């Protein structure tokens, strides 16, 4: 039965005449149902589609980077200039899964963060004196830091670059206001200090499905080894 048929049933007799009240009520109903469907579609987009897209981009970035490491090895660690939106390292967090591997992309704009975790461009490089600071999504867009809250003091965060494995160990996480940029300072929470240690900072939103706070983990480098020596102990090397 088509819509035409329905209308024939409901409006028998003489030629159809538009009743303005009916027309308005029906159009309003249609608009409301349409709005409901739009919202549901947006939920599908956020919860499913952004993750599908981001997982694909992250896999692509990882593959490109690993291929580059194999095919164009450089004795110097960061021989190529870092490019916005391009991966330059891989991050492993054993607490979040044995297979947990996410590309570290230069930049913290939305486009960068949908490919992995993003490196604050003004922060130190991995393994260097200062603070290697990264941000990651906790909900939608690949959500690499979805379960970052499960990280405990003493857990390892391993970073792989073109030449080196770096093993950091984090302290207990804490929650700050979104404006507290001092957590990514060269010496976290002491913006004036001159760095002497090699540190790492992870930032993500808190609570998971909102963003009025940030969840922060600071950590320090405890070990490093050239890749020729194999995987580090923290990854079961």
């Amino acid at each position, binding site marked *: 039965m088509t819509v035409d048929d329905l*209308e024939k049933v409901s409006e028998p007799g003489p030629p159809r005449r538009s009743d303005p009240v009916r027309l308005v009520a029906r159009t309003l109903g*249609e608009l409301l149902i349409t709005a409901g469907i739009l919202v549901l579609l947006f939920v599908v987009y956020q919860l499913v589609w952004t993750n599908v897209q981001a997982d694909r981009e992250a896999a692509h970035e990882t593959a490109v980077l690993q291929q580059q490491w194999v095919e164009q090895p450089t004795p110097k660690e960061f021989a190529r200039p870092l490019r916005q939106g391009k991966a330059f390292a891989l991050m492993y967090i054993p607490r979040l899964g044995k297979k947990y591997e996410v590309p570290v992309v230069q930049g913290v704009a*939305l486009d960068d963060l949908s490919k992995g975790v993003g490196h604050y461009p003004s922060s130190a490089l991995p393994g260097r004196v200062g603070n290697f600071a990264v941000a990651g999504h*906790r909900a*939608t867009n690949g959500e690499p830091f979805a379960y970052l809250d499960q990280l405990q003091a003493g857990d390892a965060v391993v970073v792989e670059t073109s030449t080196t494995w770096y093993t950091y160990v984090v302290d207990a996480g804490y929650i700050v206001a*979104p*404006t507290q940029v001092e957590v990514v300072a060269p010496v976290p929470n002491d913006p004036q200090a001159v760095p002497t240690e090699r540190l790492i900072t992870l930032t993500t939103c808190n609570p998971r499905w*909102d*963003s009025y706070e940030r969840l922060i983990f600071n950590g320090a480098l405890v070990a490093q080894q050239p890749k020729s020596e194999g995987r580090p102990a923290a990854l079961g090397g």
Partner: protein
Amino acid sequence: MYPWIWRHLPGPTAARVVVALALVALVVAALFLWVFPWVEPFLPFTDVTVDESATGVSLTGS
């Protein structure tokens, strides 16, 4: 609105169904490719960095 569109689709019912489904697919594709990505930064899920200008409703998403 929808009956009006239906009446203006050409051809027999079968053809109208095909055209209607194509229209729906087109609208959904436009939503996923352009409209939703544009709306997304206005929601809080993507604010994950610390930032001097950051608020709970940051429009830059940074």
